[in-house]
């Protein structure tokens, strides 16, 4: 389980305050949707619970322990070991093959090569991009790229999944694949948090956090 307590965040010392003392918990085994208008801080909150940004005040707790004050190296290690992150724009490495991009998801956690190879096949197969294993991101469609990014996030078998507008650029069929995978992850016991404007995606989430600007 992940929770935030009395969370406040400012990008700049004098910048506008986001969240203003937000306390909320994201339970394991459930998908939580963060919704709200553009600029409300949905992405920011994902980065904070994923330990990429540190709160201005308040705490982030993973499994009941404060993790937001850990040193950078320790936060990187936790993120590598436990967090699967799905970027809004897929963020693939265009210079590498699809296979290498997916493998990168396990690189920093030290997932053994054999495990990566086996899981990569399963995941790409399931997401319907198997045939494009050795292609470069420039040669696959936007929807396919997003599914590759999803496979990259899932390859380490993360127990925390953070997804920023994962269905933003997808048609309905492609979005379905992504939503299914996220729901399945939650059903498997992971903490799944999505920041989204997509009402279909928000609709399948069991919890909802509405941010206002």
């Amino acid at each position, binding site marked *: 389980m992940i929770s935030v307590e009395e969370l406040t965040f400012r990008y700049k010392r004098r910048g506008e305050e986001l969240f203003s003392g937000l306390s909320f918990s994201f339970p394991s085994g459930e998908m939580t949707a963060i919704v709200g208008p553009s600029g409300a801080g949905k992405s920011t909150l994902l*980065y904070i619970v*994923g330990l*990429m*940004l540190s709160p201005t005040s308040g705490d982030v707790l993973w499994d009941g322990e404060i993790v937001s004050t850990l040193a*950078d*190296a320790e936060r*990187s*290690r936790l*993120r*590598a*070991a436990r*967090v699967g*992150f799905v*970027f809004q*724009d897929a*963020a693939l*490495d265009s*210079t*590498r093959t699809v296979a*290498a991009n997916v493998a*990168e*998801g396990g*690189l*920093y*956690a*030290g997932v*053994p*090569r054999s495990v990566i190879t086996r899981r990569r096949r399963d995941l790409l197969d399931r997401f319907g991009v198997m045939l494009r294993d050795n292609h470069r991101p420039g040669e696959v469609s936007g929807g396919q790229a997003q599914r590759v990014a999803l496979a*990259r996030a899932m390859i380490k078998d993360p127990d925390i999944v953070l997804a920023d507008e994962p269905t933003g650029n997808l048609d309905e069929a492609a979005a379905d694949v992504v939503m299914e995978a996220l729901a399945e992850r939650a059903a498997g016991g992971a903490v799944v948090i999505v920041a989204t404007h997509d009402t279909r995606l928000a609709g399948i989430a069991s919890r909802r956090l509405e941010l206002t600007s």
Partner: protein
Amino acid sequence: MNRGSAHRLALIKEGFAMVRSNLVASALIATIVALISGAVLATTGQTAAQEAAVLSTIDDAGTRTITIREGSGGPGFDRDALPRILALSDVESAIGLGQTFDVRNEARRGGGEPVPTRVVFGGPNADLVVAQGRWPLPGEAAVGDGAMPRLGLEVPSGSVGSVEFEPVAVVGSFRGAGPFANLANGVLVGAAPEDTTMRLVVVVASAPEEVAGLAAAVVEVLSPDDRLSLRIETSEQLANVRQAVQGELGRFSRELIVFVLAGGLALTTVTVLSAVTLRKRDFGRRRVLGASRSAIVVLVLTQTAVSAVVGSAVGTVAGLAIVRQVAEAVPPWSFVVGVGTLALLAALVAAMLPALLAARRDPVRVLRVP
């Protein structure tokens, strides 16, 4: 292999992969390193080759030789002094020479050319070597290769003698270099037990800078009481010239190397810096996916190291080819390897700052900017 080192290995492999996926930057780094090592080799390598050549010429001329003889009419030196001189430290070799006379080839029945001959105390050494046969035992002769034709000898055999002296058997021939070059134009006869007196002692020091000290020690052994009557020829002046040459050439190369390295260092820093700046989104993504700061540093340094190794190899080969062409000599291998390693290290040092900058960049901010 444990999980930690497997992880590090995977990271280094990723660094190798980055060389290919950033071919332009990698090629630039390789080129700069190739230019550094090539330029240093082509310029100072020539100097190093010259230096080695000049120094060996000076060494050949006998910078390390000490020759001691007595003033006229002295009694000479006792042969027992020779083993004591050889026992001194910093002595590379030493021989004693006794009385001088002329010999002819016995097979020519008193005809033929007379050849100068000396009694020799001590054995062969690095500059006085057996060419054929063996070194003469007491009462045997060896012929210098320059004297062979004068005695009409194809192979060192037969015997030599003169009106005053009993014939002695020829058992070998020898070559002489450096201080012993002249001896090769004559004949050496091994000192018999009754030959007790050396006229001349030639000592070769192990290094030019030992000459002065060694000369004093040799004098002490030969004639502790009566030093004034000795005539000592050392090569201290030559040794001084040698030192001056070495210092001058050395300083010139060092300045050049420092200059080229500093330039290369700056160029590499700029190249790696712009490479990591261009790819800041790439590093931001890696950080979000769990790469620690040190992992980023490892990636940047690995990429630089691989490119630099390639560049250094290419530059070294090219630099050597240039030196060969221009100076027709090859600098010492230690110098070549040293230059290659130095260029590689310089590239790594230059990449350190950009690597740290890439590692410290805020991944969130970087990813927001498309």
